[in-house]
């Protein structure tokens, strides 16, 4: 069993994994970070998106052993230590960007990756970037709105609900 080490949300973590263990199961089962959701387990839905060395990755489709030595950020690393939501999370709350909340961790992680590379995306760019994140509840509209708001843009400009 390979021994692996990685920095997760700024904290050095380690563990022993089997070759076949997925990053999603290492985070959830070994580290107890159950904010990373597993929706489809077939790389379709994006509920499991985390950042690996700054890039959005579907953690259900990456081996834990592949993440040895990496810096990982999960949804648990988004809010401040006292629980204050970050700008994107707060915008999701303000604009009703979630209903059941199952897809939300992946949506927030994808949105944060998007805003890092494109701080002022257009509505079309947001929708294109979220192509791999599926939401069964919201119809996406309020998610797009929340991300527009989080990037400091006028949400009035996007189509009415």
């Amino acid at each position, binding site marked *: 069993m*390979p021994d692996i080490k990685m920095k997760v949300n700024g904290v050095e973590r380690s563990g022993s994994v*089997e*070759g*076949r263990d*997925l990053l999603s199961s290492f985070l959830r089962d070994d580290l107890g970070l159950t904010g990373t959701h597993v929706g489809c*387990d*077939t*790389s379709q839905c*994006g509920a499991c*998106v985390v950042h*690996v060395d700054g*890039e*959005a*990755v*579907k953690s259900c*489709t*990456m*081996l834990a*052993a*592949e993440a*040895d030595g990496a810096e990982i950020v999960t949804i648990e690393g988004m809010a401040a230590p006292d629980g204050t939501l970050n700008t994107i999370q707060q915008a999701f709350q303000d604009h009703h960007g979630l209903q059941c909340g199952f897809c939300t961790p992946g949506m927030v992680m*994808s949105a944060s*990756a*998007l805003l890092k590379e494109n701080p002022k995306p257009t509505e079309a760019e947001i929708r294109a*970037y979220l*192509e*791999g*994140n599926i939401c069964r509840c919201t119809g996406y509209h309020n998610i797009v709105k929340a991300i527009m708001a989080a990037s400091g843009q006028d949400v009035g400009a996007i189509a009415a609900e």
Partner: protein
Amino acid sequence: MYNFDFEKPSTVADAVAALGQEDAQALGGGQTLIPTLKQRLASPSKLVSLKGIPEMVGICRGDDGALCIGGATPHVQVAAEAGDYPALAALASHIGDPAVRNRGTIGGSLANNDPAACYPAAALASGATIKTNSREIAADDYFQGMFTTALEEGEIITEVRFPVPEKANYQKFVQPASRFALTGVFVAKYADGVRVAVTGASEEGVFRWTEAEAALSSNFSADAVPSAPSADGMIGDIHGTPEYRAHLIAVLTKRAVAAAA
């Protein structure tokens, strides 16, 4: 998933040695292989990650002017850095979704040769050379049918060399659920002629539409594109009939020529 050993070498030579073990298999971005393993459609004894090999990642311009892309280069990097071949960069930027593009590699895509994948069309239309740890394979000899290539057991794609065309364009008709191409056409115009490669249509996998190549080589305009090829041997499934795909080939070729010209 059945269990397997995991190894992450840092040179091509070490990777080839590790792949010498019986039932060992290369791991690129895992975007195809991991789902396959989950379905227990493969049971390797060992996965050899190619992601830790610096000489297999990156993009450069060869002495002959070709664009050389390392076999383990992820789609996201091709999208960002293959500006010398804009149609190729655009193709890479529309594969799957951002998370897939961050992990998936060009070598993995060409090794897998999914009948609906995008890179095989680019490689075939560009007359690319697939460089492996042991030889160089011309794209025309490399693709041998759905999920079948000229690669031998344990052979790895270390680099892909694309001659840069005068003009080119890729038209992907997206299958919205899988985000692969329902059908896709890559048109590339070189000084010595035009090449047209079609993905997502034939039961034989990616192929060259030679009739269109001949017509476009003498007149590179959308009007010169022949009428749709025969639907014989085209894929028919819940998403489209063979006739529908054959029709799409002509439509997408026209669009590609119009966009490139």
